[in-house]
């Protein structure tokens, strides 16, 4: 077992045991905090497929995070007010069922990622960073100026959506859902990286010419990776909206894109657990430094700067060695 695998196992144990301890110690706030970290980690795992595996530096993943959030917000608000979303040509009603919302969030953000990716992947380098940013901003400004679903004020959902057989308003039960999804997606992402598709994508990042020479279209690989990546981030957005029972244009803002990217960099680019380590650390810092000083972003900025300048490969890279393990 390599040091990275050991570190990953510690992370999983931590995510499993800390909320259980919090339940025993009657600290519901800790459970909510862990839930937030797990959901943000999920968004990061999504981006990491594009960023770490595909080398696609997307500064617009807030678009998918927000679409997932608004999929939840729109469906639940219609169910809340008993007003159908549309009546002609066929009836579509809102829903308060989590699984249905997830499917719709995944489909919506997947279609958006397919469209945005198809256009953006024509460019490379800085232009790619900027065009993804532009698409994110497009949706951000649209969500602000479109008044039907709250506009700038956002949308509140009074009761958390339901999951068959569980009471989602109980923090630990909602966390259980999030934990299972995060683990399932991590298993999926781990297998994806080792699949022929993942290997080809990795090769296309390192040397597109060689991949093209053996007859693989790297554009297609990247587009599929970008779409899968957007779908996972969209699912995280729906869960995040359910955690807060609130959606607002902030989910679409470019700072959100930046933060999701920060999780990956803190943890380690291209590492399976990079975003998990990063998101947990981010939430921990937000909580600890936020209690210390109102201006905790200064410390976060300094820390981030030190990581970029001196700890290349992120936290996992520093703790477990530079080589990305292939076990």
């Amino acid at each position: 077992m390599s040091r990275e695998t050991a570190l990953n196992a510690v992370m999983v144990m931590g995510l499993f045991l800390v909320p259980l301890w919090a339940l025993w110690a009657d600290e519901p706030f800790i459970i909510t905090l862990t839930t937030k970290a797990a959901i943000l980690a999920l968004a990061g795992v999504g981006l990491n497929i594009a960023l770490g595996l595909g080398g696609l530096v997307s500064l617009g993943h807030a678009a998918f995070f927000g679409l997932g959030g608004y999929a939840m917000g729109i469906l639940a608000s219609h169910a809340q007010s008993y007003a159908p979303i549309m009546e002609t040509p066929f009836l579509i009603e809102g829903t308060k069922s989590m699984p249905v919302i997830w499917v719709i969030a995944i489909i919506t953000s997947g279609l958006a990622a397919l469209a945005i990716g198809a256009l953006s992947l024509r460019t490379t380098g800085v232009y790619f960073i900027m065009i993804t940013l532009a698409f994110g901003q497009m949706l951000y400004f649209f969500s602000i100026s479109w008044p039907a679903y709250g506009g700038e004020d956002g949308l509140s959902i009074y009761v958390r959506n339901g999951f068959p057989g569980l009471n989602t308003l109980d923090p630990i039960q909602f966390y259980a859902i999030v934990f299972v999804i995060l683990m399932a997606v991590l298993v999926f992402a781990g297998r994806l990286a080792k699949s022929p598709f993942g290997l080809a994508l990795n090769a296309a990042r390192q040397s597109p010419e060689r991949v093209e020479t053996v007859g693989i279209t790297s554009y297609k690989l990247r587009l599929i990776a970008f779409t899968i990546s957007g779908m996972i981030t969209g699912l995280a957005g729906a869960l995040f909206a359910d955690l807060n029972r609130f959606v607002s244009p902030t989910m679409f803002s470019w700072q959100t894109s930046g933060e999701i990217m920060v999780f990956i960099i803190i943890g380690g680019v291209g590492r399976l657990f990079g975003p998990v380590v990063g998101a947990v650390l981010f939430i921990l810092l937000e909580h600890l430094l936020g209690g210390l000083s109102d201006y905790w972003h200064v410390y976060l900025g300094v820390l981030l700067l030190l990581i970029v300048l001196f700890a290349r490969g992120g936290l996992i890279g520093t703790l477990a060695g530079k080589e990305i393990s292939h076990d």
Partner: protein
Amino acid sequence: MSLILLAEQLLNGLQLGVMLFLMAAGLTLVFGVMGLINLAHGSLYMIGAFAAAAVAGVTGSFVLALAAALCAAAAAGALVEILIIRRLYHRDHLDQVLATFALILIFSEGTRWIFGSFPLFLNIPTYLSGPVTLPGGIQYPLYRLTLIAIGLAIAGGLFLLISRTRLGIQIRAGENDREMIAALGVDISKLYTIVFALGAALAGLAGALVGAIQSVQVGMGEPVLILAFVVIVIGGIGSIKGALIGAILVGLTDTMGGVLLPALFKTFMEPSTAASAGSALASMLIYILMACVLIIRPTGLFGAKA
């Protein structure tokens, strides 16, 4: 819609455009010469505005305030370049984005720490306030007209600097072949610091000038930064000419779209839906413009072929 209103909006668009150019010029120079994406450029804009507001508050002089904005932003730019940015030139874009994102956090929260969360105000000096009457009977604020004039003058000066002076030759040479000019004996790290400080000074000046018509507050730089990125991407990264044309294009599109689209939609929709649909589309218009430009020309209007 009257022609006078249209002319006013054209001038507003032009004013936004030239101010965006001041921001975009620095960004595009830094990218063209050093190959660096600088997200913290908006923070230098903010520093300029805060320096101007602080100095104007103490001395009451607008000219001194502008000078303070230029100096503070240039000094902050040079300091950041020497301490941090210098280590990022040979890194990939991801590291640059992250490090400069970190700088935004430090600058924004640092400014909030020093000046507090409440916005400061920078007043337009009395000799520049009030409207003037332009040919055709258009009443237009003198200050905004001054902004257009300053912006165009600086654009002209920048073109002269780049095309006629020794520094300009070094900058152009640096864009083409940095090893070669280093081999010819140009102190490359000093040149980089100068270019970075020059871009920072322009951003700081823009911040101070715009700060007088908006409020001076933490976070004021980021919306402008994003617009400036749109500008340089449309114009082609590294091209000053592209930055100027892109800036005016974005300024006009943003301003005219906000006026014309709701009016256009009213011709075939109910007034209330037309207003909301029109303003929703108008707010996305420049990003749509940018996406269209990139799809047709993936390296911008005047960008070098990658």
